[in-house]
């Protein structure tokens, strides 16, 4: 199907936009859009457990953290793009 990937991409976008629309106007201060990983950690802390080891290094701010996440995504995207471009240029597989 010619437009299959585009349709799939639109569905993915819809899945991600719906929550933004549902909770429009609400933010972190109201307890929205936090990470479920942190909620898992909170579930552990409720039992009175104290972590016995801390990270050697933490991104000093949200800005730096988003920088590093963007770097991670970029590394992956470059590699995927490189090989797909290479294969496309190669033409049909022998």
């Amino acid at each position, binding site marked *: 199907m010619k437009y299959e990937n585009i349709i799939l991409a639109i569905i993915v976008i819809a899945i991600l936009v719906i929550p933004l629309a549902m909770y429009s106007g609400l933010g972190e201060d109201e307890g929205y859009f*936090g*990470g479920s990983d942190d909620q898992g950690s909170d*579930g552990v802390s409720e039992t009175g457990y104290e*972590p016995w080891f801390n990270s050697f290094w933490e991104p000093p701010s949200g800005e730096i953290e988003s920088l590093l996440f963007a770097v*991670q*995504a970029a590394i*992956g*995207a470059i590699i995927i793009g490189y090989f797909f471009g290479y294969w496309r240029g190669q033409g049909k597989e022998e």
Partner: protein
Amino acid sequence: MHIMEGFLPPFWCAVWYVIAIIVVAYGLYEIKKVVDETPESKALLAVSGAFMFVISSLKLPSVTGSCSHPTGNGLGAALFGPAVTGVLATIVLIFQAILLAHGGLTTLGANCVSMGIVGPFVGWIVYKLLTKAGVPSKINIFLIAFIADIVTYIVTAIQLGLAFPEPTTMAAITKFFLIFAPTQLPLAIAEGLLTVIIWNGLMSYKPKLLNKLGAISDSELSKGE
């Protein structure tokens, strides 16, 4: 699915490390074998790892109003099996543990077992069975990605429940699972669809290689030509 640094008692860190190290060592052996036998598969290995890099860096909003991230572990599992996926996941998890304080070095073993090994393993079994049954790979790849994602979080819930069995182990596992599951469900569907998109690309460029790796059946290969 990231259990944060220090959030598992040392005993459980060690248990999961032992399991992870055994499987990852076997995965390294399998990588060597597949690259020796099929040198072209190196590129697919890189793409599988890169896909996991991209997908697991995206923290996505979900209908529960929380964010979580997909795992990207289905593609590698479909192509190379769960042990190799364990190796790829270890690379991603080390990057995130050291640079992002996301996950941790003490919990690396546990996170590797959930995202790199058990999640992909369960998805991979389903994938193999359905491929044998003649189900088109497009459906199978969606399912492996969806299942590997969900099972990853089930395993994380079990790991936390075992380490913090209050009031009982089962109640704790349920508690942690309910923290993750509702948020994860729509994201696992999105991850499945994204994996289908990249699969469509691979199918159009490298069907023979996918067949050689056992990821698509002979009949599907001949149908595509």
